């Protein structure tokens, strides 16, 4: 399909054709910008939790064979996951947006006001 469209497609060349599209405003700076490290944090969270699901998967499939014994093991595992989740929550790893209160605090500190 891609090949077909390549053959069929028309060609044109204009002044701004080759500029990156930024809502009509001229582009400034490279697109290789730096991102909030929050994205990396998500990646890490994913890596950790997604891998842990592997264990749950393998338990789920052998659920009946393992019985209460396996159940106990997985419960421990799940509780661990929950504890870690709570910890991360408290540690602020799950706060994705900017925290308004914190910003206000920082601003007040910056301007020398008492909070």
């Amino acid at each position, binding site marked *: 399909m891609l090949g077909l469209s390549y053959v069929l497609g028309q060609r044109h060349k204009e002044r701004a054709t080759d500029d990156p599209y930024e809502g009509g405003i001229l582009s400034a700076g490279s697109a290789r910008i730096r991102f909030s*490290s929050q994205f990396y944090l998500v*990646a890490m969270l994913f*890596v*950790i939790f997604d*891998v842990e699901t*592997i*264990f749950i998967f*393998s338990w789920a499939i052998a659920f009946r064979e393992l019985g209460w014994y396996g159940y106990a093991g997985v419960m421990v595992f799940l509780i661990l996951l929950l504890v870690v989740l709570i910890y991360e929550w408290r540690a602020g790893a799950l706060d994705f947006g900017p925290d308004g209160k914190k910003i206000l605090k920082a601003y007040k500190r910056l301007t020398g006001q008492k909070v």
Partner: protein
Amino acid sequence: METVAVEYGLVLAGTLFALGLVSVLVRRNIIFMLISVEIMLNAAGLAFIVAGARWGQADGQVMFIFIVTMAAAEVSVGLALILQIYHQLKTLDSDAADKMKG
């Protein structure tokens, strides 16, 4: 399903391992080094699966899951560290991270 001969599997795993090894030694970018190490780990995992298949045991697969888990943990810590290093050094060239000598 046909079973692949153990030798071939091991050779494949070995090749992967060697590729990872070479690239760890050659690469200078820390992220690529990390990736290469992951390749080596996965090669080891593959070898386990092949070995497990040879003996018809699940042990190999279990080990593989362990390896994947551990690799994941490694990557997440590794990424965090790399991020910090980048913040400090503004580069990921492993030659830049040579403050310690002797």
